[in-house]
Each structure stands twice: as C-alpha cells, then as structure tokens.
C-alpha cells in the first residue's frame, strides 16, 4: 500500500469515526417490507435518513395511540428540522392493509409517519432482526384478535443501525433530544 492510499484510508476512517457519534446497539441488518402506499420498502429506502420505528397495530386502543402521542410531542419539542426523520409504524396485524395503515396514520398530523407491513415471512424476519416478538391471540374481545407485541421505540441512525431504545414511559423531551443529535 503506498503512502497516499494509506493516508486516504486513514482519512476515511477518521471521517466515519466523526460521523458515527452514537454507538450501534444492535445489528439489525437489511430488511424488506411494504409501505402504506403498497410499495416495497427496504432498509435502504431510508437513504441516509435517521428514523424512529415501533411495532403497533391500528386496533390497539390504548398503548399504540399513547406511544403515537408521545412521539408527536417529541416532534413538537424537536422542532421543524426533525420532520426529516420519519416514524415507521410496523404492523404485524393482517387486518392492517396498506390503505388501513395510511388512513390511520393520516390522523397523526404532527408525525411524518409511514406505515409498514408485509408478508408473514417478511414481518417475522424483520421482527426477529429487531430483537422483538409478537403473538396474535383471541382475548375474547368484540374488537377481534389482540396483538401482543414489543413496545420499544427504536431510533435508527443514518446507517439504519439502532442507536437508541426507548421504553414507553420515556419523556418526549428525551426522544426529541436524541432526534436532534442525529
């Protein structure tokens, strides 16, 4: 290796080290789903944008809207610049077709949300990659099946790596601060 190449490599390494201000918490790898417009959506589709991500379903009356309102408050705190960070709402519920997801998410005006779903195989793979889990069961509710699911909110950096995990009780301010730091 000549000295010029070595210097370039060193510079590149340095540049990467500079850019990567957050430590990767888990290696989620590449994944592929379908977005709320019915188009394929892959991890690379984020194109260098950070993103928030959580698992939910539209028939969830309590936890999911609560998480969504926490996220909405985080966006307000983080200011207009945070609108470049999408929130990915991943539903494993077969009732949540792309049009249902789109209509559901349109209600949360403050959040630049994108609904994601997919085939069972796609979803199962993606859920596993995120260290999450879900169980669809009949709880006897008139609203139909209940989806028990992981409730963490993930913050992905520009490389699609998970750099922060928030539990449902996290204050919007903390999420906003993490969004602003990316």
């Amino acid at each position: 290796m000549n000295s010029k190449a070595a210097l370039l490599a060193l510079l590149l390494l340095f540049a990467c080290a500079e850019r990567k201000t957050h430590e990767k918490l888990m290696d989620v790898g590449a994944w592929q789903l379908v977005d709320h417009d019915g188009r394929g959506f892959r991890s690379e589709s984020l194109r260098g944008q950070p993103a928030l991500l959580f698992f939910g379903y539209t028939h969830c009356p309590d936890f999911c809207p609560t998480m969504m309102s926490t996220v909405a408050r985080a966006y307000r705190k983080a200011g207009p610049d945070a609108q470049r960070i999408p929130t990915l709402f991943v539903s494993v519920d077969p009732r949540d077709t792309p049009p249902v997801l789109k209509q559901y998410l349109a209600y949360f005006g403050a959040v630049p949300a994108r609904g994601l779903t997919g085939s069972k195989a796609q979803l199962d793979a993606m859920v596993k990659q995120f260290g999450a889990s879900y169980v669809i069961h009949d709880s006897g509710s008139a609203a139909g099946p209940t989806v028990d699911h992981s409730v963490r909110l993930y913050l992905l950096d520009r490389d699609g790596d998970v750099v922060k995990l928030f539990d449902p009780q996290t204050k919007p301010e903390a999420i906003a601060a993490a969004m602003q730091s990316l």
Partner: protein
Amino acid sequence: MTAIAFLLFACGPGAEVKSGRELYLAYGCAACHGANADGRGPAAALSQVKPRDLTNLGAYRGPSTVEGISNVIAFGTPGMPGYPDIPKREREAIAEHIRSLAKSPARVAVYDAWVRTPNPAVDVASAYMTLVSTANEPLSVVAVSSPLANIVEMHETKSVDGMMSMSKVSAVRIPANGTTKLAPGGTHLMLVGLRKPLPRQTEFTLRLDDGTTVTTTAVFLDEQ
C-alpha cells in the same frame, strides 16, 4: 338559559308553606332537571352543560349535603345559574327533597372520565376515569355501558419484559375506601362499535357488584 331561569323564577310561589317537592316544581327546577329529577327536563337540551341527574348525587363531584345543595341553588355552578332570592328555608326544603330522591347511596364516585378521540380509521376507542370508593369492603365494576358504543369492555394492558399484552377482564376491583385509576398503559375501557357522528360528550354507566350503578359524563380528549 339564564333568561329561561329568571322567567321561571318570576312565576315562583307566594308566601304559603310548600313541601320541598312543590317548591322544586314551583321554582322550575324541573325545567332542566326533570320532574323526577333525573336530569332530563324539557329545557335540558338548551343547556350547554348537561343538567345533573339529582337521583344519583354520588356520580358527580359536588355537594350532597343539605347545606351544600342549598348553596348550589343560591350561587349556581359553572353550568347552572344561581337563585339567591329563594329564601334559605325554601332552598333547604328543596335540598331535602333532592336528597330523598337519591336511589341507593352510591358508594363509588367517578372522576375525570375521558375518551381518547377515536382515530377515524378504526371502530374502537379507549376511555379512562378515576373510581373512588367510600365502601368499607372492596367493590368491583362488573359491567359498563355507554351510548357511544355498542360494546364497552374492560381491558388490562400489561407490559412484561418489553412486551405489551392486552387482555379482557370481567371485573375491575376498587379497594375498600380506595381508588382505582383507569389510565393509558394500564386498565382501560375499550369501546367497540362507535356511534357516528361522535357527540360532543358522552356518558358511561358502571354497574357494581353490590347492585348499584354509577353514571358519569365523559369528554373527548385528543392527547396529541
């Protein structure tokens, strides 16, 4: 509303001694609260605030003693005009009458009931409230109904090891002389089959395992 109230007052009784019920009717309380005091009087629809169901004092915040009710009649509430010109003796007679109408003494009071404004994409919603019991033994809510929804279920949300689990329960327990809070992320009411269009406010009737019922009004809140 105030104009109607004054008109009614103008037609009030003379000096002769009347029973609490007669005074209640003579002063026009029934216009809003109804002849049998259930809050469904003919002018109730004109009132911005739903007139109180006086047969169920325990379901609402506010006084339930003779003195307390008499003061409400004299000075009003945010939703009801005051009638300071009704003599104290007559106000107390009306208060006695109102107290005599109370069904069984409600031992659970409901506070701060609210419905999360439903997302138009789905036919479910959640509702929350605080239940305060003055009973010396534990009580349970065994059924809930509301004109807002075909079905009201009681659900528990539990978060175990980062996994959220929701399940339907058949009763919600209130400790003796204690409080149970239905709140986001915990026990909540799940409404299935919503009435459309949504009203401005709604009510919930809770049936307890001692056979009594408690009714409360609830507002819609958008947590966003």
